Every structure is written in C-alpha cells, then in structure tokens.
C-alpha cells in the first residue's frame, strides 16, 4: 500500500522536474540578448566556434529538439559558462551552494532546539504570563523584516559591542582547503596546525547570520508547535491517557508531542521556500559567500546562465525538501497514510 503512495510521489516529482526544466529552458529565450549566449555563456563566439555551438544547441531546429539538447547538457553537467567569470556554472554552484546549505542547516537546528520547547511551554502555560510572553515574542519575531533585523544586530553586536565580525565565513588569515564545501567539517579535515583557532573564528563568523536567519523559523516553530499542541491537548486520546493514570510528562511526550509534531513538520516543508528567500537576503547583508549572494551579483552583471543554473539548483532543493517532508509526514502518520491510499 505504501509503495503505491511512494510511486505516486515519484511520479509527481518527475512531473515537477519536467516542468521546472521546461521553465529553465524557456528562460534562455526569454532573457534579453542572443539565446546562444544565454545558454552557453560564451559572450562572443568566434567564427569557428559558432557553427559548432549552433549544432550542439540545436538552435536551427524547433524548440522540442532544443529542449532535448538542453536536457542532455543538464544531465551531462554542461551548464554553460558564467558570463562574469567564464568559469563553468556548475563548478561555481558547487562552491557557493554548500555555504548556503550550511547556513540554513544551522538556522534550522537553532529553530528546532529553541522553537519546539518554547512552543510546548507556551501551549502548556497558555494563560500563564510565561506563555503569553513567549507567544508575544513569537508574533514580534514573525513580523520582523529580516534585512532590518540583521542591520540592527550588526549595529548592536558588531559595531556597538564588537563581539562578532560583520561579514564572511572565516577570517582571511586562515586558509582552509575546500573538501566538502561545509566550513566546520572542512576545518576539522584540513589537518592544519591552527585548526582550533580557525574553528573558533569560523564559529564567531557563523553566530550572527545563523541567529538572524533562525529568527523566522524559530517563531514559526513556536507558533505551530503551540497551536498543534493546544489542538492535540483537547483530543480524547489525551483524556484517555490521563485517565489511565499516566503522569503529566508521560502524556506530554508519548501522546502529546508526537502527535503535535506532525503538522509542525508539514509546515516546515511548506515554509522552506520562504526560508531560502530569507537566507539569500541575509547572505547579502553578511557577505556570506552562498548562492544568494552569487545570484544577486549575477543579476547586476546580467549573468543569465548563472541565473538559470541557480533556478535549477534552488528549486530542486525546495522541491526535494517539500516531497521529503510530505513522505515523512505520511510515513509517521497512519491517518494520512490511509488518506493517501484511499
């Protein structure tokens, strides 16, 4: 039964990817300028190269052949050259993408560690002052424009108190070879003599952007954990559990939290695309060398192959996270499993 559901999700996934590649392909024609340049990233192909490229990209033929050629290039890893640096787009993406993933991962970690317990507390003490304070803070955090919040934090912690640096992932003093692309594991793998100092420095750089980015998901977590918990707390199975003589904390963890986390998980999948937008903005403010900063540079440089590649990578990430959350939600929730099959 569950296989039936998984196959259907897989079908959906392939359909969405098909539509996504169609969209990315059409951009090559929609962007201003020559489609050949937009696809290849070679700004002035000479007379020798031109016929080869036209042949390779099937530009003399109809859109269908062009699309098939485009798909083949994507699968082979030939994503064109960046118009700004003349480096392969895929290579540049592999350099900047892990930085974004790292930032988003730490922000999500913070939001889990802070958001779930605070949301629980807010639900249990809903009418107590502590519950009200938590709900109010969550509402305030939910309404903050991230760029302004980031600037306030910089003004306070970097300019005012001087605790944290304002930009970058690590001080230029330390040379860390990129192995995984993630800074903290890379430092541990580097085997340099100064790895401890480098680690400290990297963490100091990480604090502020991760905290600023975590604000939104944390408040989302608090709000949804609270709402879900309040909802679950009224169900009859909670009353049954209490009547069986389980202690308050046993009911809370075994029956309450497990059920309350289901809608929270689903919401997390839905909010992921907002989180990526926020990550892109905070990367710009903190000069974090991730995909957001790279894309925003690309737009001012009219670097169309880069934008196309960025679209493919970011959207794929969001799609995968969405579908993964949906599948997990169904696996953990027998009721949803029944619905998915029935």
């Amino acid at each position, binding site marked *: 039964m569950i296989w039936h559901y998984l196959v259907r999700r897989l079908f*959906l996934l392939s*359909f*969405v990817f098909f*539509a*996504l590649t169609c*969209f990315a392909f059409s*951009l090559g024609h*929609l*962007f*201003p300028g020559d489609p050949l340049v937009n696809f290849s990233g070679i700004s002035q192909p000479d007379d020798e190269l031109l016929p080869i490229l036209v042949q390779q990209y099937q530009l003399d033929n109809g859109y269908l052949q062009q699309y098939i050629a485009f798909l083949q290039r994507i699968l082979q890893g030939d994503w064109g050259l960046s118009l700004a640096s003349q480096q392969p787009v895929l290579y540049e993406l592999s350099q900047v993408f892990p930085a974004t993933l790292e930032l988003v991962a730490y922000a999500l970690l913070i939001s889990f560690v802070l958001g779930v317990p605070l949301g629980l507390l807010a639900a249990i003490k809903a009418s107590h002052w502590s519950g009200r304070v938590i709900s109010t803070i969550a*509402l*305030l955090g*939910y*309404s*903050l*424009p*991230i*760029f*302004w919040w980031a*600037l*306030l934090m*910089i*003004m306070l912690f970097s*300019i005012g108190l001087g605790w944290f640096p304002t930009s970058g992932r690590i001080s230029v003093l330390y040379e860390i070879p990129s192995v995984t692309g993630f800074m903290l594991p890379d430092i541990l793998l580097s085997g340099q003599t100064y790895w401890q100092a480098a680690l400290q420095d990297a963490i100091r750089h990480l604090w502020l952007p991760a905290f600023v980015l975590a604000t939104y998901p944390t408040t989302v977590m608090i709000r949804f954990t609270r709402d879900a918990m309040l909802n679950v707390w009224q169900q009859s199975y909670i009353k049954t559990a209490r009547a069986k003589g389980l202690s308050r904390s046993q009911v809370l963890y075994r029956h309450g939290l497990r059920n309350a986390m289901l809608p929270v998980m689903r919401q997390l999948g*839905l909010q992921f*695309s*907002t989180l*990526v*937008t926020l990550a*892109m*903005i905070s990367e*710009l403010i903190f000069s974090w060398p991730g995909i*957001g900063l790279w*894309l*925003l540079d690309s*737009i*001012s440089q*009219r670097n*169309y192959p880069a*934008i196309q590649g*960025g*679209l493919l990578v*970011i*959207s794929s990430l*969001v*799609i995968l996270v*969405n579908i993964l959350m949906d599948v997990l939600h169904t696996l953990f929730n027998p009721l949803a499993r029944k619905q998915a099959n029935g």
Partner: protein
Amino acid sequence: MAKFQWLYHKTEHGPLSQLWVSFRQQHSAVIGLMLFGFFTLIALFGPVLTPYDPYLQNPDALLLPPSWDDMGDVRYLLGTDDLGRDQLSRLIKGASYTFGIALITALGAMLLGLLLGVLAGMSKGFRASAFNHVLDLALTIPSLLLAIIIVAILGPGLINTIWAIMLALLPQFVHGVRNTILQQLEQEYVIAYRLDGANNWQILRYVIFPNTWEQLTVLFSMALSTAILDIAALGFLGLGAQAPAAEWGLMVADALDLIYLSPWSIALPGLLIFIAVLSVNLVSDGLRTAVRKRQEN
C-alpha cells in the same frame, strides 16, 4: 449549564456581527486593526499630509537628527537624510509605496486566486490533478528567486517585482480556495440544493461563496504581511522600487552608507515596516481566532 448555553448566546445576530463580537474581545487584535486603519489612511492620503515635498532637497539641512536631539531642528520633526530631504515626509510617502502597493498586490493575488481556485475546485479528474501539480511547482520557487528571474527578463522596477510577488502569493490563495470549496461540496446542504435543481454556478453563487469569505479574509491578511515584507525586501535589494522613490525598504538601503553617521535613518523606516507587518499579523491572528470561535458555536 452547557445544555442551556444557547440561551446566553445572541444567535439572532448575523455571522458578521458574531465575528465582530469575538474579534472585539481580543485587545491585541483591536489595536492591530486600529494601526492597520491608520496605515491605510496614511497610504491613501499620504501625498496631502506631507509637511514638505518628499523629494525636495535642502542643501542647508543635511543629515539633521530628529528634532528631540540637541542637534535637531524642530522644522524637520524626524530629521533629514543625506540630501536634505525631510524624513517625515518621505516616511509618509513611503506608506503609499510599501503599504499601499502591498494592499493592491495582495488584492490582485486574491482575485486571481479566487478565480483559479474556483476553477480547480469545481473541476474533476485529470484536469484538477494536473492543475495541482503546476501549482506545487509554483509553490517551490522562492519569491526572491522569482523576482530575480522577472527582473532579469523585464528589468528592475516596482511594477515588475509586483508581478513576482503576486505570482508567489497566488498558490496559497488557490490552494486555500480550492480546499474550502472541496470541503463545502461535501456538505449536505449543497447536495440538497443540487437536488433542488441548482446548477454549478448557482451553487457557487448562493451556497459556497457566502461560506468562503471568512477563509478568504484570513488568507488575505496572511498574504498582506508577506507582500509588505517582500516589497520592502526587494526595494532593499535594489530590485524593486528605484532610487528617488521613498519606499521604506529602499530608504533603509540608501542609509546603509550612513550607518555610523545617522543610525536613525536606518532605524525609522525599518521600524515602520515592522509595525505595519505586526499590525497585519495581529489582525490576522485575531481573525483566525474569531472565525474558529464562531464556527465552534
């Protein structure tokens, strides 16, 4: 006691006044509504209210701090920016840009979403499922990425980014409207009405629409707060409103070079964005609670 509860409830009131009664009981929501009304008025009548022309440059009054500061000037209540333009006038003008245009954007997305949601809700089989899948795709493209792509095609500008924000807001409306319609279609009164010989349009017009407006208002208020944040963020990134415009996000970006000299010129526009979004969220939360209470009764 619970048995006689209907005696204490004024059930002769219509749904709208019932909603208002439970909305009014929440103080934070009422404060939010007042702020919301205030911002709407400023956005509408802003151009008449400004003490100075928001684009008038006064070279004799550059970078004045707010008037309560020792260095301030009482003629410029909230000080001036680096070109000698009056901050207060610019902030008032900014309400029409950030708040007013967000209102229009969310309204546009709601109308379009209503149309598409009705189409999706009333159609069945392959068409409905294909429609949903296209929507799922649209949901996955982050609004900023969508804006970057539209700016790459059409060039930067407020109008162009409005399309991006509208497109990004659209799926949640379509999903919301579609789910509400599907929920309504299962109700027995819809079946009864259909047995009376009503066609699809009549069911939609007389049975389903009166039952969707609550959901629509909640969706609208949620979309509005996203729209304000997105317009300001795009203005800040230089993709949205362009240079002289007094858009709040753009004003923060303009003041970035002056972060040491005049921190208030970063703090003030950002604070207004924050309060505007907060007021919308307060109303949104209050509405959701009120709707839930009304439906439970």
